[in-house]
């Protein structure tokens, strides 16, 4: 069997190894490329002090998972036009990972080593979003960017800039409100808006929107101007000219309000009495228990932090510092305020009732006058209401029979106006007697419509400014530590190189293994063990393989037959006979050297050699050389060797079929004799 030569096997299969490796590597590259996915990630940090305690600026628990809330993702889908994606499919691809710095990790380890509880509220997070190969890295980047944009705004709206501003008066003129009610709603809305705007001014006095060019101060001043000029102008016209859509409805509405205020006032009275009783009892008990025996010289022994802290020293906040007694006093104060406000609001309603029920003088023939809405009239009405309330309060009759006062009020009103025409009518005095009433009503309606439209426009400015403010607050409260970066999850190049090396090793090993197996098989089944050359079976296969091929030029067939092999065996013994055969085999391999030669021992002392890429003369010369070597052999010198050599070559004999070439060589065999070599006698 051939010796194990690594290079021989590799050399034999090198082109194939190269091609297979190349094809497989390309396949691996294609496979990994098709499986590639991308992750866009960014690092955000919550800057507010409360975040370190795991809280939002409002004091609620900070929940970073809101970044992937369906509300935010739905907005992202809408803004990016990703209607083909479901909210859940996007949510499932968002990952939020907390970042704990090295110092904090050391603290954690130290506390855990000491067996203490470790609580940490991270403020830095990595937010990532993954996309597949078809979607690409750009998709991941845009989606994550949009998610962060929406979250920053949402965070600001929810936890920082949460004083909402609403426009509840849009289209109010087309609804079934009376004029005075419309104006009250408009006024309240403006009042709330101004209050919310000044709240924002207080937080960020220098904020100015780049979209509208306005600050909240500018907007507040515009609302104030509208309120002081247009709203009060409309109010005064409505009151002065008693403008109403339905006087009866208006009067019943305001009477109902008065009734509610009176009930609330009576309820507050009861609560006040209860709170006062509790206060007295509380002080009494505190006195009896000795808790009030503290002098100004009393000083606590320890030094205390101003803030409340937990066991680890983390600040928990200011905490509730109000004592029970203070709470009771505040409760008394609140109920008293509520009661007093109810009385004043009730007075306002009476003032409206008075204005719309009053006769201008036209009904009694004293000419068309105007309604008195002066300050003196207000004072008179308030004093009247306060005096009535106090009287009723003293008699403790409000809470028991709240409707009685209303009836009394209506009766008084009727008694005062019974003689006038307007008091019996469903219309106000101005509506009955003022010839310009219709024109004035129409003018008021137009002005209300124009005011609402103006407020709508202003609200749009406000909305735009506020939207930008939310974005600004979002970026102020959450900072970006690292811009959105997109990475490939599969390192295709690295894996391809690894695969190429792997395939090279596997293919090489395979080639060696196959080569070696081939050696073994050939040795067992296709090698003549005595000569080490291919045997007859191998040669039959060879002939079969080349049967239908047209041979190239330069292929030679050499047949060598030892004609006296039987005689040698008989005279010199079988061992010498075998030696002769082995000598022939060895010499053939020597003389043909590295030429592409197929050596066969066909049995019966016959050798066949098929030499490729050669010519007739070369083979003849080589065989001549063989004969010379044989004649000077060092083994089997004692025996005479008779042999025949036949040489045929494709070009020389114009035969291009292997079997014919073989036959030709056999037919051209010439006899040769190699004489025994006499050994010198020493």
């Amino acid at each position, binding site marked *: 069997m051939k010796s194990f030569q690594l290079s021989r096997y590799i050399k034999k299969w*090198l082109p194939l190894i190269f091609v297979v490796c190349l094809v497989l590597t390309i396949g691996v590259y294609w496979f990994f490329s098709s499986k590639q996915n991308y992750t866009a990630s960014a690092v955000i940090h919550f800057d507010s002090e409360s975040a370190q305690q795991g809280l939002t600026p409002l004091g609620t628990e900070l929940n970073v998972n809101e970044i992937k809330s369906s509300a935010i993702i739905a907005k992202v889908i809408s803004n990016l036009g990703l209607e083909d994606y479901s909210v859940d499919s996007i949510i499932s691809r968002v990952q939020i990972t907390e970042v704990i710095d090295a110092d904090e990790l050391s603290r954690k380890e130290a506390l855990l080593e000491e067996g203490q509880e470790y609580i940490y509220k991270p403020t830095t997070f990595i937010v990532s979003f993954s996309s597949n190969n078809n979607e690409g890295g750009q998709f991941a980047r845009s989606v994550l960017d949009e998610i962060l944009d929406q979250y920053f705004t949402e965070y600001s709206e929810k936890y920082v800039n949460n004083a909402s501003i609403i426009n509840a008066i849009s289209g109010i003129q087309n609804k079934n409100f009376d004029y005075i009610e419309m104006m009250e709603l408009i006024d309240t809305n403006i009042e709330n808006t101004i209050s919310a705007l000044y709240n924002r001014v207080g937080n960020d006095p220098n904020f*100015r929107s*780049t979209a509208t060019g306005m600050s909240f101060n*500018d907007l507040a001043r515009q609302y104030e101007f509208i309120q002081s000029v247009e709203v*009060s102008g409309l109010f005064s016209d409505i009151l002065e000219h008693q403008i109403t859509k339905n006087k009866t409805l208006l009067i019943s509405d305001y009477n109902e309000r008065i009734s509610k205020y009176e009930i609330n006032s009576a309820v507050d009275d009861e609560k006040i009495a209860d709170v006062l009783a509790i206060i007295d009892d509380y002080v009494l008990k505190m006195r009896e228990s000795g808790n009030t025996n503290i002098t100004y010289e009393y000083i606590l022994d320890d030094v205390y932090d101003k803030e409340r802290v937990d066991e680890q020293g983390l600040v928990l906040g200011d905490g509730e510092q109000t004592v029970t007694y203070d709470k009771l*006093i505040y409760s008394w104060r609140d109920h008293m305020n509520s009661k007093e406000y109810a009385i004043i609001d009730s007075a306002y309603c009476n003032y409206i009732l008075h204005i719309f029920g009053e006769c201008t003088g036209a009904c009694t023939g004293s000419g068309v006058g105007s309604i008195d809405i002066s300050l003196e009239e207000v004072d008179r009405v308030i004093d009247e209401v306060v005096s009535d309330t106090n009287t009723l309060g003293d008699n403790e009759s409000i809470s028991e029979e709240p409707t009685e006062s209303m009836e009394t009020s209506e009766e008084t009103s009727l008694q005062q106006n019974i003689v006038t025409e307007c008091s019996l009518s469903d219309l106000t005095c101005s509506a009955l007697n003022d010839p310009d009433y219709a024109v004035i009503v129409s003018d008021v309606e137009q002005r209300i419509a124009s005011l609402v439209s103006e407020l709508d426009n202003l609200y749009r400015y406000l909305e735009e400014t506020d939207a930008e403010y939310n974005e600004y607050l*979002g970026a102020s409260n959450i900072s970006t530590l690292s811009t959105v970066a997109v990475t490939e999850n599969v390192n295709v190049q690295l894996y391809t190189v690894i695969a190429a090396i792997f395939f090279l090793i596997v293919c090489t090993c395979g080639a060696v293994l196959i080569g070696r197996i081939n050696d073994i098989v050939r040795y067992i089944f296709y090698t003549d063990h005595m000569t080490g050359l291919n045997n007859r079976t191998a040669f039959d296969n060879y002939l079969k393989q080349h049967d239908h091929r047209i041979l190239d030029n330069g292929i030679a067939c050499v047949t060598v037959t030892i004609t006296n092999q039987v005689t040698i065996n008989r005279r010199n013994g079988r061992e010498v006979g075998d030696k002769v055969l082995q000598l022939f085999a060895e010499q053939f391999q020597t003389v043909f050297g590295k030429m592409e030669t197929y050596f066969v021992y066909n049995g019966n002392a016959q050798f066949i050699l098929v030499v490729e890429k050669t010519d007739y003369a070369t083979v003849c010369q080589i065989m001549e050389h063989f004969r010379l070597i044989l004649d000077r052999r060092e083994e089997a010198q004692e025996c005479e060797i008779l042999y025949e050599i036949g040489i045929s070559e494709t070009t020389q004999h114009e035969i291009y079929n292997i079997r014919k070439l073989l036959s030709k060589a056999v037919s051209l065999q010439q006899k040769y004799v190699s004489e025994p070599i006499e050994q010198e006698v020493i």
Partner: protein
Amino acid sequence: MTISLVIKLFVVLILVILAAALILSYVKLKDCSLQRMKRIVFQQFHWTFWTIPVTIIFAVSFMLMYASAAGNTASAVITLNYSEASSGQNSNQTRFNMSDIISNDVLELAIEKGALEGVTVADLKKALSVAPTVQGNSYNPDGYHISTEFAIYYFATPQTKHLDAHQLLDLITDSYKQFYIERYADNFQKLNMEFSPETQFSEMDYLDIVAYLEQQCYLIEDYMYSLAQASPSFVSSNGDTFASLAEKCHQIADVQLANNIKSYLLYNSISKDPDGYISRLNYDNSLIEYERRKTLASYEISNEAVRMYSEEMAKIVLVPTWDADGDYYMGRTKVGIDELSVEAQEYSEWTADYTKALESNNAIVASLKKASSGGSNETVDQMIQDVCRSLEDISKLAKTAGQEYSEKRMNNCIFSSIHTNSIFRGFVYTFVFAFAFFVALNLLSVVKRISMNIGWYLSEKK
């Protein structure tokens, strides 16, 4: 197909030919020594004729593909120059979103500006991508990076093939600059003040006009003060500082409007509609009075609460603690009367404010009651016109100063540069590749020739 892909393709082709030649030569001449192998190769190396037309075909193919790819790809870099960019913010301190660079608004603007035909925003989006030129590593704190330079890549698609890549990127970068300035740069639109008193104020009473002009004064004044806070030392080309402009506005509001016109109106009882104005003020007063009564009631209630606070419960305890500077001091326990007293004082102030408002309105009412009749007043009209002109002038100065400051601060905010593939570079590539291909091809040819005559070489070896 991109240029890099074309280049890669042709490099691979050359490498394959070279590899084939080398492998073939190795297989055929594996038994020769290296020296002999060299000798054989150099002996046989002479240019083969057929390689010349093949190389020409190769060069032409490469040039065509390169030219096609060069027309289909381009890139641009957008650099953010303002200070907030390093915090990942826009110049108005909102979050910077790089996707804005190729947002629908920007692409629509680009299509409109370039009058591009046969292409939609969606088509352009498919052909464009944006990425930071240097991107950080989110998973390593040392690798955190806020990008301020972003590259736009354009790869033509069948829908955008007819567009010129260079021109398209030029349009997109221009559109983004415009979009950015409109959305994120300082907006001085509100300082465009132009008044036409005859028509604009015809329906308004004089005192309302004064209030309106005061409001405009405060608008400019506020704007200028906010800019003065940001840059107190900035001086415009007109020689104004923001503070000086704000002061000028204040003077108009204080001297020209409040002192001159308003005083003149009240002193001379001038109003376009005195009765209407009095009626309005009366209504205002009635509302103010209700509010004043409420604050007065709250004031009295808070006072009453302080009075009824039990002496025994008002005793305090001294608490040793430290202040914000870390110095020890004696704190004391807080009791309800502290808060109630503060509250009472606040209510008292509000009540005083309401009383003041009432008095002011009453003074106006008293003045207007003396008015003989309504209508316009030429002197007042002239005074208002003068104030309007002053305001218009100062608003122009304010706008100029603001714009100059904004430009300086933002350092032109965005800088863009476009990278395209030059024809010269294409020629260089073609020449280099053609030469390499020619050599590889000839090498292959030599090896083939050697392999055909291997018998001869081997016999020569012997």
